[in-house]
């Protein structure tokens, strides 16, 4: 992929008159030497795999460690009973993010987006948006191109792995990708997409990767929720016309700098943060027996 910044994608979009998503589709065709149809179909397959993974959630399953499971089903009951303060849309997003995170921890099939640990963010907002607004599948696939392009820029400019940049690089990136995709789905253009990315990533800047017992379970499953809900807030702000004082590319640069400065104990080593709390240590010791 030839893009190193959001600005470059926007420039090509403006000069060619093609929408943001199509600039990335063209780039994929060139990069992988595939036809337009092949590229679209592959992204459609990713979307369908997300739907399948959501539907395949097992509300009775627990992870091998026993640390996570069944919370997606709990949230579903609560939302369906009409109790969710956040309403049915955000309630459903929370439910789906938990479900996907738990499915991943329970060795079910998921789509890494951008990583396995953050696999709940994009599907939870995309699937719920499609349901709520009856968006055609084709448009959902276009929004996935938007999200993928954003993730690509972040991966090239900074990082998307917790081990290198902390959770801000995983759930933070997923949140930015989802926010950009949502802004597009909700009628935003290039400006709104970039603003949504900037705001979503800014809000998770500095988030550390501190998994209890080194497993992709606590706090990872629930952090998918905050990535998803933050994405909706950022996209809504962006489409409302709210802008970010710091442009998206500079926020990504800041994320990289923060990740580099972050101590190793807070980058997926299971040594700091929540992993080092008495409860975290106890959980680890129980598993070692």
């Amino acid at each position, binding site marked *: 992929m030839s893009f190193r910044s959001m600005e470059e994608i926007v420039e090509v979009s403006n000069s060619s008159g093609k929408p943001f998503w199509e600039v990335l589709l063209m780039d994929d065709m060139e990069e992988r030497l595939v036809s337009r149809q092949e590229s679209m179909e592959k992204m459609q397959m990713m979307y369908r795999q997300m739907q399948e993974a959501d539907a395949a959630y097992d509300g009775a399953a627990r992870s091998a460690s026993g640390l996570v499971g069944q919370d997606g089903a709990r949230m579903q009951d609560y939302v369906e009973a009409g109790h969710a303060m956040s309403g049915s849309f955000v309630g459903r997003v929370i439910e789906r993010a938990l479900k996907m995170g738990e499915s*991943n921890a329970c*060795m079910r099939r998921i789509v890494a987006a*951008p990583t*396995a640990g953050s696999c709940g963010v994009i599907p939870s907002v995309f699937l719920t948006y499609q349901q709520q607004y009856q968006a055609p599948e084709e448009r959902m696939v276009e929004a996935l191109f938007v*999200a993928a392009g954003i993730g690509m820029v972040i991966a090239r400019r900074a990082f*998307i792995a917790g081990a290198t940049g902390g959770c801000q690089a995983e759930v933070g990136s997923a949140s930015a990708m989802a926010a950009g995709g949502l802004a597009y789905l909700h009628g935003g253009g290039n400006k709104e997409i970039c603003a949504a990315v900037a705001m979503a990533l800014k809000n998770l800047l500095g988030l550390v990767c501190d998994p209890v017992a080194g497993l992709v379970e606590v706090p990872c499953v629930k952090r998918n929720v905050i990535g998803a809900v933050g994405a909706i807030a950022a996209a809504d702000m962006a489409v409302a016309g709210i802008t970010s004082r710091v442009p998206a590319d500079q926020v990504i640069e800041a994320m990289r700098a923060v990740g580099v400065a972050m101590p190793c104990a807070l980058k997926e080593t299971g040594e700091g943060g929540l992993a080092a709390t008495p409860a975290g240590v106890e959980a680890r010791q129980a598993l070692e027996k």
Partner: protein
Amino acid sequence: MNLFDIIGPVMVGPSSSHTAGAVRIGYVAGRLMGEPIQKAGGGLHGSFWATGRGHGTDRALVAGLLGMHTDDIRIPDSFRYAREAGMELEFYHVELADAHPNSVELTLNGTRGKELVMTAASLGGGRIQVCSLNGLATNFSAEYPTLIVENMDQPGIVTAVSAAVACENINIAAMQLYRDKRGSLAVMILECDGEIPREAVEKLSAIQGVCGVTYLSMKE
């Protein structure tokens, strides 16, 4: 890296390094065996040992040995499939010198007598590196169509193998040669830009001095 490294891959969780990468390592080892495995030992190093059980690393390695890919929903049940296939399994702790934290040493015995000791590392994002084969240090990723040729260390074999690949009009992206000592068994690894047709691979086995040929296609 392309767009589908960002949205994708489709994989069985929970971890691209501890699960998906482990499946790929097992898969490469299974292909190198080329015969059903009777006994498999998995020496887990570093984080693979410390957090492997919680990440299903052991089950992922076995799934790979059985020929499963990273998106195969049978991965969590791979121990049962291995039992049904008559594969004996054992996992234990090893300390490998200067190894990546996510490393494994697989010791495999085939039903037709083949033995293989392979060490490999999972580098993150599902990417792997095969670090040694039967004690010979190697370095390949199995991300390209890869030919692994075991041969006698004697003159002319490299030329014969590379000529056979050139005949198919396929470019060699990287080529590595490894041997223990002069005249011993050597390993040649060719990472190619294109897929090598099956007949061409079969022809390689017929070259004098070649003891074994394994081809890792990207299309399977």
